[in-house]
């Protein structure tokens, strides 16, 4: 078990290095940071001097080695745009993104699971079909449009919910949360729904498909043949077996929730790392972009590991055999 985790961690380090290398080598193509950092009066000589100071003229290998050396110490340099240490910047924005991702993840999972189970059990019901069709609307329009439409309806027309930002946040010292104030919670609703809608649809369809498969399984038929109640069969047996693959894929979805937060955060002016990333792309703020991508990789690696461990807990077949199989 420990060896397994260690091996996984080692793999993760390799993955992160690759991500860092790939992302770092891509930045040379996204634009010239120097031209956005200097005002319009700057001369060619000024730009060249800044480029030299930033080390942008060094060979790629040197730049990358420097980046990695500092990155492993948690130092991603200074943001070209906001002139703050990137690590601080990201840490200060991370709570917003994580809260948004968590809430929308929970929303997606709970609703997706519930509706998925319902539509699987009532496969031929009209309500199931209606839910199945309606859920597709969520994946048939781009996220940004859904966000803007929600703002229009719920913030402008009905004025029920805020259109942007996080509301009042409470500083817990190392974490600023919007969950403790009414305005913070109200501000979460629209972005969380926008972000979670897509995942909700995916999870719901996945749950339904898996559940239909499971309901066909022999052991379900055998459970029925033993006279177990529908409740025990559907929720005790079928649901639990459905959850095994669902957990893996849902876990992976969490990573993409954080990535898709880029769009949601932009639309709702949500002060998270996604919006930070997009602004950084526009400004060619290389240190922030690099740190963000490494962070995403880290989040993914961690989620992956947790999912694997969870899988391990849920599915006894993966656990080490306690006794040899035999007659």
């Amino acid at each position, binding site marked *: 078990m420990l060896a397994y985790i260690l091996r996984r961690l080692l793999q993760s380090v390799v993955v992160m290095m690759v991500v860092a290398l790939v992302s770092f080598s891509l930045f040379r193509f996204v634009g010239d940071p120097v031209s956005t950092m200097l005002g319009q009066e700057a001369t060619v000589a000024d730009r060249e001097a800044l480029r030299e100071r930033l080390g942008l003229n060094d060979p790629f290998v040197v730049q990358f080695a420097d980046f990695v050396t500092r990155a492993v110490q948690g130092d991603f340099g200074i943001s070209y745009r906001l002139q703050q240490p990137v690590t601080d910047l990201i840490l200060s924005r991370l709570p917003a993104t994580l809260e948004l991702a968590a809430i929308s993840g929970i929303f997606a999972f709970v609703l997706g699971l519930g509706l998925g189970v319902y539509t699987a059990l009532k496969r031929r019901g009209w309500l199931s079909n209606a839910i199945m069709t309606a859920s597709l609307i969520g994946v048939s329009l781009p996220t940004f449009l859904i966000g803007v439409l929600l703002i229009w309806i719920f913030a402008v027309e009905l004025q029920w919910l805020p259109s942007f930002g996080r509301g009042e946040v409470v500083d817990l010292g190392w974490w600023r949360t919007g969950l403790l104030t009414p305005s913070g919670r109200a501000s979460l609703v629209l972005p969380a729904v926008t972000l979670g809608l897509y995942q909700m649809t995916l999870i719901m369809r996945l749950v339904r498909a898996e559940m239909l498969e499971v309901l066909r*399984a*022999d*052991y*379900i*038929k*055998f*459970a*029925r*043949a*033993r*006279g*177990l*109640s*529908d409740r*025990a069969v559907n929720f*005790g*047996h079928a649901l*639990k*077996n459905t959850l*095994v693959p669902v957990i893996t894929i849902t876990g992976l979805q969490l990573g993409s929730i954080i990535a898709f937060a880029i769009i949601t955060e932009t639309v709702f002016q949500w002060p998270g790392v996604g919006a930070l990333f997009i602004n950084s792309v526009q400004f060619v703020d290389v240190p922030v972009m690099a740190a963000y991508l490494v962070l995403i990789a880290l989040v993914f690696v961690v989620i992956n590991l947790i999912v694997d461990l969870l899988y391990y807990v*849920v*599915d*006894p*077949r993966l656990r080490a*055999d*306690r*006794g040899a*199989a*035999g*007659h």
Partner: protein
Amino acid sequence: MAEPLLSVRDLVVEFPTRRGTLRAIDRISFDIREGEVLGMVGESGAGKSITGNAIIGLIEPPGRIAGGEILLKGTRIDDLPPEKMRRIRGRRIGMVFQDPLTSLNPLYTVAEQIIETIRTHLGVSEREARERAVALLDRVGIPAARRRIDDYPHHFSGGMRQRVVIALALCAEPELVIADEPTTALDVSVQAQIIDVLKEICAERGAAVMLITHDMGVIAETADRVAVLYAGRMAEIGPVRDVVQDAEHPYTRGLMGSIPTLTHAHDRLTQIPGAMPRLDNIPQGCAFNPRCPEAFDRCRVERPDPIGRGGGRRVACWLYDRAGVKEAGNG
């Protein structure tokens, strides 16, 4: 004779399809007496398993029982509301499926699955249920049952798992066990053991067994009576010794030829050319007539119903219709 444990009367099971309704079971009737072992044989698709599923009320929709009735100790059970039928399943009629590898939920321990079943039906305490489960596992031949009961199914071999399945089918002390090809998926070396365990334990508890198989050899050794199905219809039924030694239906005679003589079983009727018709393409008259070496005109026009032949035997074949208008055409 006492009232039969189970009585199936003119059972019809239909599956609607877009090309019309398919009759998977077409007017089958038979009885199972308390404590007896009824073998049910036939090729794949003959309707054996569907008959078993029909009895415990687990026909897959859109399939449905379209006619006839099923009586358990004289009470109709085919039209019971789902909740009442559920109480019969497991409690009064147990079921053993073909593949022990897939019959057990991989995510629950054996103990959890047995105890759940016992407590569903018998209202005993957790501890009591556990004791019963251990005893039962011990009885079906799981070594060190007390220790292994908390293992997951994947810790057991195929043969052991089928023993667990048998224990599960019997744990609520049913009066009838329907065993649907219980050994087909198993290694040849353990098949006999499983059949023995099943037979012994049912005999001990006085449970009747409906043993579904395509293996005439197993029937010959195990069953008291045998029913032969062909294309959803009953071809012949009678005491196993009579049927094996003196099969009357031409199909049964062919089937007897497929009893394994050496070590491996035949799956098909090597003696009779052709194959069983598909359900949407059953010929007029006797379903067997295109393959029957003894078929005559009437067989191609009129469907034969089982005819009593004495000694509890019935055969659905015009060869034995003495009262028939037309006499057998072959000399």
